[in-house]
């Protein structure tokens, strides 16, 4: 049984609960030289190509099972993947999908942008100024932990069924994590680096711009990526519940008229879309921040 050892960074906490899970998911194991594999670890930019064969195999297995179960007519509401694929193609060609996404994506993008700006600002302010932290931090922790989904019906009652309601749902479900990640990133700045800056007579402003923010950038980017994830949930939930537009509506409509292949096709499309978006964001994030995160003390010694 070979066990790799993850780099030491136990960033799991209430405040930024998703940060470490994403780290754990993204980092490939670093073993001792005796066990390190060759290809992907020597080409880190191709991390998503690692074990491409295995990835294809795992898709193949699941799709094969789906097909078999679907054809066994266990339940009318569980069609085989072949009919889902056909429905997907049909909806893509006749423009239904495009029409739905034209309604879903704008509030998502706008909402996430708004949440990022406000959340980053709030997080940075909380991180740098104690009074702000004392007042706002419990608020954001509550928002992150609590089921904000309960407020979505209220949002639609208050704001109607248009783009504003969707945007607010997106903001509600994505802002807290941005703020919390920014806060945590700033808080986690290595005190040695700050001491170093002060000993070289750096001003507070230089401290912030040259040490704290770069050090926090890793967590901040991760927070933005997680907020997109939350935003998808917000917009889908809003659309499922009320608005007669968008991909959520496509799902619930097809469900109500029992067009199950179409319903599954819509579901798969949004999940695939979300996954691809988040993967792209992860690639961008890696480009910008490399594997550099906040320096967290003594690195594991290499030993032979």
């Amino acid at each position: 049984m070979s066990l790799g050892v993850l780099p030491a960074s136990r960033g799991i906490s209430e405040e930024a609960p998703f940060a470490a899970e994403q780290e754990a998911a993204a980092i490939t194991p670093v073993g001792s030289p005796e066990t390190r594999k060759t290809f992907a670890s020597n080409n880190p930019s191709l991390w998503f190509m690692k074990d491409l064969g295995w990835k294809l195999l795992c898709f193949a297995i699941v799709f094969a099972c789906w097909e078999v179960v679907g054809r066994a007519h266990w339940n009318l509401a569980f069609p085989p993947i072949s009919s889902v694929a056909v429905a997907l193609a049909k909806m893509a060609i006749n423009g239904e999908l495009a029409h739905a996404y034209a309604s879903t994506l704008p509030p998502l993008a706008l909402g996430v942008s708004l949440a990022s700006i406000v959340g980053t600002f709030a997080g940075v302010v909380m991180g740098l100024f104690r009074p702000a932290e004392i007042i706002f931090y419990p608020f954001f922790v509550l928002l992150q932990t609590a089921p904000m989904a309960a407020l979505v019906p209220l949002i639609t009652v208050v704001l109607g069924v248009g783009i504003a309601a969707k945007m607010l749902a997106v903001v509600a479900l994505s802002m807290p994590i941005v703020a919390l990640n920014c806060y945590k990133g700033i808080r986690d700045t290595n005190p040695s680096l700050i001491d170093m800056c002060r000993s070289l007579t750096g001003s507070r402003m230089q401290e912030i711009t040259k040490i704290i923010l770069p050090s926090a950038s890793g967590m901040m980017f991760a927070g933005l990526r997680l907020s997109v994830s939350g935003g998808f949930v917000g917009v889908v939930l809003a659309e499922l519940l009320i608005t007669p537009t968008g991909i959520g509506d496509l799902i619930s409509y097809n469900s109500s008229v029992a067009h199950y292949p179409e319903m599954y096709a819509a579901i798969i499309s949004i999940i695939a879309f979300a996954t691809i978006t988040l993967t792209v964001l992860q690639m961008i994030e890696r480009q910008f921040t490399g594997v550099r995160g906040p320096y967290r003390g003594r690195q594991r010694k290499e030993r032979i």
Partner: protein
Amino acid sequence: MMSVDASAIVKVSEVSLRYPNGTEALNGVSLDVPKGELVTLLGPSGCGKTSLLKIIAGLLQPSSGEIRINDRISRAPGPDRALVFQDFALMPWATVLRNVAFGLELRGLSRASRQAEAKRYIAEVGLAGSEYKYPHELSGGMRQRAGLARALAVNAEVLMMDEPFSAVDEQMRRKLQEDLLDLLRRERKTVIFVTHSIEEAVYLSDRIVLLSRNPGRVMRVVKPGFRRDTNESDIRRDPRYQDIIDDIWTSLKGYLN
């Protein structure tokens, strides 16, 4: 090349190790460890000394060559060998008592007898009173004493120590070295010691095996000859002490590039 020693308890024969990515860590290493001696593997980083120790311990398989313990070929860990780790390898969720008794616990000894054994060795390494503490409550030196007690408690013939004092501060390190010599006077073990400190090697060893790197090979064997004859507090004052250190340093310096 060392001459074959009839009373060698550990025989390493033509051991080579190649990593999956192709680099050769060890090439044709042969050495004998006579019973009751403290033999040190000394060399710069990357010479494969820890890998060699792991091979002898049975944690790693060599690409070629064999290890014999008491003239029997050995490929896996066994009750004849115990290991003391550089990072202590103490279970942080267990008390010192449980940690020291762990080897006995794995063998199935009853709780009463293994705790009694463990307490004996805890006292012997100077940790009496800390039985119910957790590792995070102990200093580095105390943790390593616990690691040593655990290795002693299983009564193995061969004790292997992988840079055991390098994660500890300098003063504690000297104390541990002195205490180790004192303990070995009482316990009569064969010890294979890995270090990159020349000073430590000369202080502690009956013989020092110098390893080169890229790939790791036996360069030289040096016999300081202090451990038996001299009192541990006088070793560093002996005029030959510094000479031997300088001699070894000259040999190793050439390989540091």
